């Protein structure tokens, strides 16, 4: 345990952990020391001098070593003659602070008056007005009147675009450097800097494209004034007019907690709509950060073209029908084709939706095939076995933890995890990145392991073989608890430990977190990768502990939930191999994304799809049912670390749309299934009763909150920024099976296929990019600048051989697909491979590795 020390604020003694920052220490005891430049997530710089206090220390008699006391027996303090900045002070034993004396009051007063001499009177139109630390602290500690003339104020540029997402108002900037320090310290992107000095000091963007980071929006939250505003919200409402609703980001497996600022809107027909998205504090998940996709990617909730009625295809034309007719039709078709039914569940269906869909399929088929989409990764069942244990908090891991990120372009696939792993590396965690090509996380990795696509498994096997050599790691394993141990030992006998340094780093730390992506792997290969990761964790006893275990970097928000509820990518593969006669597709767009799936779906006799928009998949369906986006309804997502989190109804409903679970339950009623539940909460209750892992995940439990540190939001705007208090739930982390010390675990030797050699030119590797043309993201027009055009990355040698230069238009062809794209030759693609970012082109391409040829086409 860390040592605690006693310190004194205004004569009162308090205890706090040694080494705590003084401002934080005061805050922990609900005492305010106002700050501008200090931020609890950043290193102190002492730039603004708002935090001036009187500092002193206990007066100790040199001879006796006793604390001197006055005649009343109170301790005597010695004070520094001048005011000191509290934010640069660490609490030591006997430290004393005075925060309310005349000198301190005067000091704060003068600093504020000074700041205001060059701050414009923009409050009435400023987006920060109403939740502005400068306003609040001026009201609390300011002089009340100015001795300076407003006409003499400095004039600077008021409308400086820092990229297309963030605007800077130079007059409002108080030069606290929170924004630049956020980019430097937390993100590590060299994008913002100070230019010039003195009063001419300015924030400038030094990257091209400007402000080129995936986390730019966070600077607007922590900027203590309205100098940084987002293009998305700009003038959308005044802060006090917004109703903040709690929700969860639907874009990626991190599951960031969001606060949606909503207001009625004339242009939306008087409906309540989302005006802005901000982070909601959850120190277990996203702390107080979110990426720009989560912040700006909410426009699908009300974009033009949202489906408002069930639509039936009749003789090639779409006709609207009512819900009962739609239910009857699907029920009749299910009766007809029930024995040949395929189910595809999209990545952002909530647990409730997945549960009702599974129940519906179960009514007509004894063993329904429940597939997930995208079907690029698998192994959610293994995550349930050896996932990270209770108490896992990524933001707190340090040197005792090693982190392996394998087969994932981490920043593109899970931005906030990337951010946290990067910071863990800064704190001393051993981060090892294993991938077939360079990714951004390489910069922060202690070791980088390169393998050839398809051979990721052998990297893990190498580590496992290395672990087996070390009896202190694997000696205590008991055969009775771990099934298959001897077979695994035997299989690993012949494996030579490779990448010794990386392996040593990973194995010497107390904890090991493995983030496994799916890049360059088929579903079958991915299962082997996940199994290899599970083997390694079980062999080394690293499974089922806090800050230790396996995490899948899923291509969607709730794919872990889908696995927990019985869906799998293997089922999808089986369905594509022998296409069924009827499909139910929930919130997925396989026809646009995958050529093979497109063929399997268009060939079916009856396809019903729930969708937000008329996508290629809905076009290929016979009946399209309008579903509600995450903003119009309640539900839960299970994030990649198996934290079940609740999202709430945020905005008004579009048209006659319904939540997926309701649709599936109503169809089930017509097939003599159980009566539909009346609320998402009731569906969850059903889940808790039938799915043991989720037994505790009732809605009231998920809504529980606890006091988090640092305290941000609420009245503490000046301290943490405008990120919001979490009043609506921190969610529930489901413990993995391995956490139960007596549970039976299983290891299995994994097979390593040699990469299939084909006579085709190249192997096509689908890779994920954050900013894509996904249905949930495409409608956010503001982000279109950042969405790259369809492209394919080639290795220098391959490009030369094929006569292709960077920027050429090329055709990428293979078995059953053909797309056109722009060639990129930027040194990331290994020889023999063509990297194809998924969900960028409107023509379907493979979603798992395939053979391809690339040729240049005319302009």
């Amino acid at each position, binding site marked *: 345990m860390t040592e605690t020390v006693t310190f004194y604020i205004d004569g009162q003694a308090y205890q706090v952990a040694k080494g705590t920052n003084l401002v934080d220490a005061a805050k922990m005891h609900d005492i305010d020391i106002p700050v501008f430049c200090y931020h609890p997530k950043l290193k102190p710089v002492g730039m603004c001098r708002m935090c001036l206090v009187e500092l002193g220390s206990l007066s100790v008699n040199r001879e006796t070593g006793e604390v001197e006391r006055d005649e009343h027996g109170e301790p005597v303090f010695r004070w520094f003659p001048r005011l000191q900045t509290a934010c640069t002070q660490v609490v030591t034993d006997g430290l004393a602070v005075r925060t309310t004396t005349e000198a301190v009051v005067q000091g704060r007063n003068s600093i504020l008056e000074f700041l205001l001499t060059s701050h414009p009177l*923009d409050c009435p*139109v*400023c987006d920060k007005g109403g939740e502005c630390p400068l306003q609040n602290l001026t009201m609390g500690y300011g002089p009340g009147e100015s001795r300076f003339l407003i006409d003499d104020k400095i004039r600077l540029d008021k409308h400086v675009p820092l990229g297309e997402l963030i605007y800077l108002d130079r007059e409002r900037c108080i030069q606290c450097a929170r924004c630049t320090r956020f980019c430097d310290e937390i993100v590590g992107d060299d994008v913002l800097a100070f230019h010039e000095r003195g009063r001419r000091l300015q924030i400038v963007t030094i990257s091209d494209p400007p402000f080129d980071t995936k986390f730019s929006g966070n600077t607007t939250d922590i900027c203590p004034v309205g100098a940084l505003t987002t293009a998305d919200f700009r*003038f959308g409402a005044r802060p006090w007019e917004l109703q903040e609703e709690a929700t969860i980001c639907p874009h990626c497996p991190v599951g960031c907690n969001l606060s949606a600022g909503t207001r009625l*809107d*004339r*242009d939306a027909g008087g409906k309540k709509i989302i005006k802005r998205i901000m982070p909601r504090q959850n120190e277990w998940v996203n702390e107080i950060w979110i990426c720009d996709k989560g912040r700006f990617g909410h426009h699908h909730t009300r974009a033009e073209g949202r489906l408002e009625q069930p639509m039936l295809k009749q003789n090639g034309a779409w006709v609207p029908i009512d819900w009962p007719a739609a239910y009857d039709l699907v029920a009749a078709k299910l009766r007809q084709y029930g024995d040949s039914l395929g189910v595809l569940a999209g990545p952002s269906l909530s647990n409730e939706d997945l549960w009702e869909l599974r129940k519906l399929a179960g009514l007509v088929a004894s063993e329904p095939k429940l597939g997930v989409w995208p079907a690029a990764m698998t192994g959610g069942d293994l995550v349930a076995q050896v996932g990270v244990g209770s108490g896992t908090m990524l933001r707190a891991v340090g040197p005792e933890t090693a982190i392996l990120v394998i087969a994932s372009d981490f920043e593109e696939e899970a931005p906030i995890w990337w951010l946290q792993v990067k910071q863990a590396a800064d704190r001393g965690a051993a981060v090892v990145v294993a991938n077939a090509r360079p990714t951004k996380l390489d910069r922060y990795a202690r070791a980088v392991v390169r393998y050839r696509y398809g051979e990721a498994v052998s990297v893990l096997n190498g580590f496992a073989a290395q672990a087996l050599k070390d009896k202190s790691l694997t000696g205590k394993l008991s055969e009775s608890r771990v099934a298959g141990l001897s077979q695994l030992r035997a299989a690993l006998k012949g494996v030579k430990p490779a990448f010794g340094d990386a392996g040593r780093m990973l194995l010497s730390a107390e904890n090991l977190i493995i983030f496994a992506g799916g890049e360059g792997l088929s579903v079958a290969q991915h299962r082997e990768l996940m199994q290899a990761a599970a083997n390694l964790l079980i062999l080394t006893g690293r499974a089922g502990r806090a800050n230790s275990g396996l995490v899948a970097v899923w291509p969607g928000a709730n794919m872990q939930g889908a696995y927990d509820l019985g869906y799998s990518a293997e089922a999808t593969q089986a369905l594509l191999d022998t296409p069924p006669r009827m499909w139910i597709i929930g919130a997925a767009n396989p026809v646009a994304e995958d050529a093979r799936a497109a063929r399997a779906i268009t060939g079916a006799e009856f396809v019903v799809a729930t969708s937000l928009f008329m996508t290629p998949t809905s076009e290929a369906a016979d009946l399209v049912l309008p579903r509600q986006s995450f903003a119009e309804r309640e539900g839960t997502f299970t994030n990649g670390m198996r934290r079940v989190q609740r999202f709430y109804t945020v905005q008004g409903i579009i048209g006659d749309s319904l939540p997926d679970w309701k649709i599936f339950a109503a169809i089930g009623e017509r097939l003599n299934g159980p009566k539909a539940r009346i609320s998402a909460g009731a569906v969850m209750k059903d889940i808790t009763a039938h799915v043991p892992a989720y037994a505790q995940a009732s809605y009231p439990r998920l809504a529980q909150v606890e006091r988090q540190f640092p305290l941000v939001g609420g009245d503490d705007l000046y301290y943490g920024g405008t990120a919001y208090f979490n009043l609506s739930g921190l969610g529930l982390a489901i413990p993995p099976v391995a956490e139960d010390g007596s549970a039976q675990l299983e290891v299995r030797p994994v097979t390593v296929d040699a990469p299939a050699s084909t006579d085709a030119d190249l192997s096509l590797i689908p890779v994920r990019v954050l900013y894509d043309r996904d249905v949930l993201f495409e409608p956010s027009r503001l982000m279109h600048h950042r969405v790259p055009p369809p492209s394919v990355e080639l290795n220098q040698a391959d490009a030369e051989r094929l006569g292709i230069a960077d920027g050429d238009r090329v055709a990428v062809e293979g078995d059953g697909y053909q797309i056109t794209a722009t060639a990129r030759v930027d040194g990331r693609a290994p020889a023999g491979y063509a990297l194809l970012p998924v969900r960028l082109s409107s023509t379907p391409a493979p979603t798992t590795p395939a053979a391809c040829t690339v040729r240049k086409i005319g302009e």
Partner: protein
Amino acid sequence: MNLLRGFATTLKYLFEDKVTVQYPEEERPVRERFKGRHALKRYDNGLEKCIGCALCAAACPADAIWVEAAENTDEERYSPGERYAKTYEINMMRCIFCGYCEDACPTEAIVLEHEYRLTFSDRRDSIYTKEMLIDPPPPGVPGTPQQTEPGRYTRSIPEMKDPL
């Protein structure tokens, strides 16, 4: 006796000046500081004074005002400030004519004027939109939106003088 005294009063008033006004044929002028229907003001160059800050709505004790703001551009400029009121509505059925909105306005854009004939036969008609509230531009001056030269209007809040 009382009866007679009553009749005497009646008789006296028969010969005094009439106080009854034959409204609506006849109208009496209101006091200078009378607070009637609001008007949204313009500068002499036709630009709107309102910058869509919604402080009037915040100050209104009856929650009668609804403002939605949008950003000006030099191609389409409504006000000399950074933003303008895209939607501006007052529900006259809620308004208690206290004038707080006028007090709160940083640009003196909203003024309670002398119009008091506010009648409607449908509740919906009690909502006065921006088009109904805004003064016409001065004679010979274009209304809004206007196209303005870049760099002319750069302040977030226009100076409180006529920005001509």
